């Protein structure tokens, strides 16, 4: 382990590697995110993820945000375990009827101000699952949605862009007072 740790010390971090196009884009986005988040919410933004019946594709890309390439915690963005600690509810899936109640309760448990991000094609309108007897068909039918990030699933870079858009919007108003 010492060898591995030592190598990590002398190797340049992955997040600041000389620019390939995609890596440069990550850095640029990350810097923008940093500034915007601080203006509105001080040092941090806490995100609570709820899977409302997704295929798990969106969750995989949400996980990727925490890897060394994206590492969004550098900027005070973090995924939290309790809705009580959350500013943003990030919802995936077409909202199955079996998850409707749990989603609503999670939203209700969050303190205001709060924002809801619907992640992925299914979360917008049910996507390819729309019309099923088992599906509500979109997050906005259950809780008020502030932002939709499209994609099947959206790549991590698109999720980052979406969060910036949310924060830009949030700077103009006081956040949801809805409970």
């Amino acid at each position, binding site marked *: 382990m010492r060898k591995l740790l030592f190598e990590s010390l002398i190797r340049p971090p992955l997040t600041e590697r000389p620019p390939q196009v995609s890596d440069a884009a990550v850095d640029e986005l990350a810097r923008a995110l940093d500034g915007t988040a601080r203006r509105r919410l001080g040092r941090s933004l806490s995100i609570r993820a709820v*899977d409302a019946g997704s295929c*798990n594709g969106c*969750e995989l890309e949400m996980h990727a945000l925490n*890897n060394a*390439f994206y590492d969004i915690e550098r900027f005070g963005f973090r995924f939290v375990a309790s809705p009580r600690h959350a500013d943003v509810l990030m919802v995936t899936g077409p909202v199955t009827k*079996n*998850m409707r109640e*749990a989603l609503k309760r999670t939203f209700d448990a969050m303190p205001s101000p709060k924002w809801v991000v619907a992640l992925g094609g299914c979360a917008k309108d049910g996507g390819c699952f729309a019309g*099923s007897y088992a599906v509500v068909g979109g997050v906005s039918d259950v809780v008020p949605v502030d932002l939709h990030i499209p994609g099947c*699933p959206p790549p991590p870079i698109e999720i980052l862009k979406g969060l910036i858009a949310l924060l830009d919007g949030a700077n103009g108003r006081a956040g949801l007072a809805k409970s």
Partner: protein
Amino acid sequence: MPALADLIEADRRIEHHVPWPRAVVAPKVWNLAVEQLANGRWSLLGLWGEPDKVHMALLDEALDIGVISLDCRGGRCPSVGQYHPPALRLERAAADLFGLAPQGLPDTRRWLDHGQWGVSHPLAAQPGAPAASASYRFLAAEGESLHQIAVGPVHAGIIEPGHFRFTAGGETVVRLEERLGYAHKGIEGLMAGASVDRAAGLAGRTSGDSTVAYSLAFARAVEAALGITPPPRAIWLRALMAELERLANHLGDIGAICNDAAFAIMHAHCGVLRERVLRAADAAFGHRLMRDRIVPGGTASDLSEAGASAIRSLVAEIRQRFPHLVELYDNTASLQDRTVATGRLTVELARQYAAGGYVGRASGRDFDARRSPGYAPYDQLAFDVPVLQEGDVNARVWIRVREVEQSLSLVEQILGRLPGGPIRVDIDTADNAALGPREGMALVEGFRGDILAWLRIGEGGWVERCHLRDPSWFQWPLLEAAVEGNIVADFPICNKSFNCSYSGHDL
């Protein structure tokens, strides 16, 4: 003792069921098959319903596969689960969806139906009035000072929805009971009457981490039904995608299991390698998870020279870095202390449940669908199937480690021998299906285990019925057994070492 093939030959054989036979059998024959399951000679590959029918896919001792079907008037059929527990949840699901009433079923609680759909038996010929949403009766555990811990469906991390009910005596888990179905989207309902293209899209969204494997299973079942062979290049490209998917998932899992033992450095380094795989997949096939890249008839995208070299440098990087991580895992006593002897699954249970993937192979079940029944191009590729006997978290990590090594070798072999030519043939479903219903079936090895796809294409080329059986159906119940006697705090590491799919199970 009968062979499965004899049993099927003797009865009303269905004409267009490819590649393995299917027969509608009499109750006596059905019971004979159940007997073979119960005494451990045969394995259950799947059990699914249709209005007034129930089907069972079986694997016999000679590794032959067959499907037997039973007409059940009024939905009444003899329960398989009463003699062979792995069928229990499948029967409960068939009861919820089709209104089947397995006679003698020891557990009649609803499974997928949580009383929220506004309808009951949605896929039956005559769907019923909505079931009242009565509270779910969890199984009892009695004893002094036992307490319950209820977890989910919303979990603390970025995880799929499901409910776990622990009964603990102090720190020790006395009983874990799972309640699933929260991610039920009605995929089989949406597929009924859909075009092959639309159904392929749904199949690829059954379990996001296995989108390649599901697309492949569905495509192979369609091609079997319609008698189509995709071009050689497509067959090899599909295997390339499947191995990339396996690499990405295994690398992610190895890191995540260590992370559940609070050993974050493995998680960080494995996370980097996983991201490299996804980026190479994106460069090669235009999508990080390679979704919708496998279609009935071939593949939707070709591999360019640039894509191939992205994959080559990926393999080089993993070959360089991964051995150091394996060494780190192997030489860290505090980590081994958490994984060795934790969450032990016995060889007998793995065999009884025909557990696929690393869950089965870490507990002595030497089965890999790529080898048997096998499918192209794996018959022309060299690979080992690692098997261990210990059945603990550590063994499930090591199976993944060995499979990463095998997949790297497979990727190299495929890149070295990738044939040229077209990547897709047209499937004219209408022409092919004009002669009457055609049924196809496939068994494909995803990273998690064998995925079964079964479908019937009707006149006009529509999908009449499609059933997709995730490996998790036979792994989730084993997690309950493996976690018993462990401390509550070790549940996450046990759970991650199984990494069952919620969405793939709930459909």
